[in-house]
């Protein structure tokens, strides 16, 4: 299977190989060398929901590899006229070699994968999964800490609707980390995910306290409280802005602790943190390029190890 719908589609060995491959892609990702491994191939970027980083980094990744990109947005397309996802994907099956899909409905990526023959890469389905974000998150953590074993990783914010937190926690649990899940009661990690993490043998602590856990952390992964996922304004107002990190919170942190964020941020991380040694969120956003280059190659059957010495 060349689809990537959830992190369960990848074995631990495949994840590590993708991260190794992504590292080999770094010079090409920066544009220092040209590596046309996907020349003649077409990627369809199917965005039924807004995206900045994911869409652009997939586009850059494909272009850095010599491929071409079709960009689709649902506004103004046949979708606005009531076309089913099934029909839209049939069209794309004929127009491209691989498709990235983001959709507001959960399950849309798996549904698309069942509907077509070309590889489907899930770029976020509702509050479901976002595995390519997870790959770049893992890459970022590994670049700093070399390994995942026994790291203390704190996920903070909207763990209920935040799909990046869902995918990342699932993946991290497979690599023996200690997870601290920090969220208000209303935005706790869904029970089925916590059950999965525990059954993977992961140490999980659920709390609503941020500050007292900072000094133990190797990675602090902040997330935005997502206004668009709330059923009403009042519920959002109760929890928005509840967790904020500024430079002053970081006194006493571990030397090589890093702060990550899938971005966009609102007020969770104060700009004063940007210039500290802990900030990794912009580097993390860049890391989307090499990891997505590695993933596109894998989906299209290109073995980077063979191609890049």
């Amino acid at each position: 299977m060349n689809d990537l719908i959830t992190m369960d589609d990848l074995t631990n060995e495949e994840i590590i190989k993708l991260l190794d491959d992504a590292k080999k892609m770094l010079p090409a990702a920066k544009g220092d060398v040209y590596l046309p491994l996907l020349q003649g191939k077409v990627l369809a970027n199917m965005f039924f929901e807004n995206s900045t980083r994911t869409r652009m980094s997939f586009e850059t990744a494909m272009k850095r590899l010599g491929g071409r990109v079709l960009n689709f947005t649902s506004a103004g397309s046949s979708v606005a006229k009531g076309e089913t996802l099934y029909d839209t994907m049939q069209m794309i099956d004929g127009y491209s070699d691989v498709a990235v899909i983001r959709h507001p409905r959960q399950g849309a990526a798996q549904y698309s994968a069942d509907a077509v023959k070309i590889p489907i890469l899930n770029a976020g389905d509702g509050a479901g999964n976002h595995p390519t974000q997870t790959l770049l998150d893992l890459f970022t953590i590994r670049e700093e800490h070399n390994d995942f074993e026994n790291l203390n990783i704190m996920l903070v914010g909207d763990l209920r609707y935040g799909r990046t937190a869902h995918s990342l926690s699932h993946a991290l649990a497979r690599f023996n980390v200690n997870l601290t899940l920090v969220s208000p009661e209303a935005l706790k990690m869904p029970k089925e995910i916590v059950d999965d993490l525990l059954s993977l043998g992961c140490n999980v602590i659920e709390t609503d306290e941020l500050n007292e856990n900072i000094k133990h952390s190797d990675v602090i992964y902040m997330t935005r409280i997502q206004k668009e996922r709330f059923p009403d304004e009042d519920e959002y107002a109760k929890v928005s802005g509840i967790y904020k990190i500024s430079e002053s919170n970081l006194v006493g942190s571990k030397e090589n602790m890093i702060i990550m964020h899938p971005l966009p941020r609102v007020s969770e991380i104060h700009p004063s943190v940007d210039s500290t040694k802990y900030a990794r969120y912009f580097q993390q956003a860049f890391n989307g390029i090499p990891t997505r280059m590695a993933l596109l190659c894998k989906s299209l059957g290109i073995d980077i190890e063979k191609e890049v010495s």
Partner: protein
Amino acid sequence: MRRVTAICNGTVIDHIPGGQSLQVLRMLKLDSGRSNPISLVMNVPSDKLGRKDVLKIEDRELVQEELDRLAIIASEASVAIIRNYSVAEKRKVGLSDELINIIKCSFSNCITQNEREPLPHKLIVVNKSPVEIRCAYCGKTQEISEIPDYII
């Protein structure tokens, strides 16, 4: 003690968990006003279950597809096909690994909620005891007690 008279032809479902027989009728779509005669015994003492329900459905032999539905909420049930007042056949209730077009995913934001989407409703049986069912597309765990509301 026999609480309901024997039936001549039809199906007897025994060992339904106490109080669940009305849900079973909904799962089997036998709860409409026009169905066959049905006798229902609820909450009688049972060695196996503590309390159990029994259903006797006249002039109707349940087919395997219906027994698969039954398994979702009454996996311990035993089913006997009655012909001419005696047990002609015992049928097994068994839960398949996949439920295709039997129930819909209950999650309001699942892609399958768009009724015009043509692919089949597909749920995966992750665990058989206790029964745990997840949507094959969105991955949501289904609330077993709500399943009769989502029967296709």
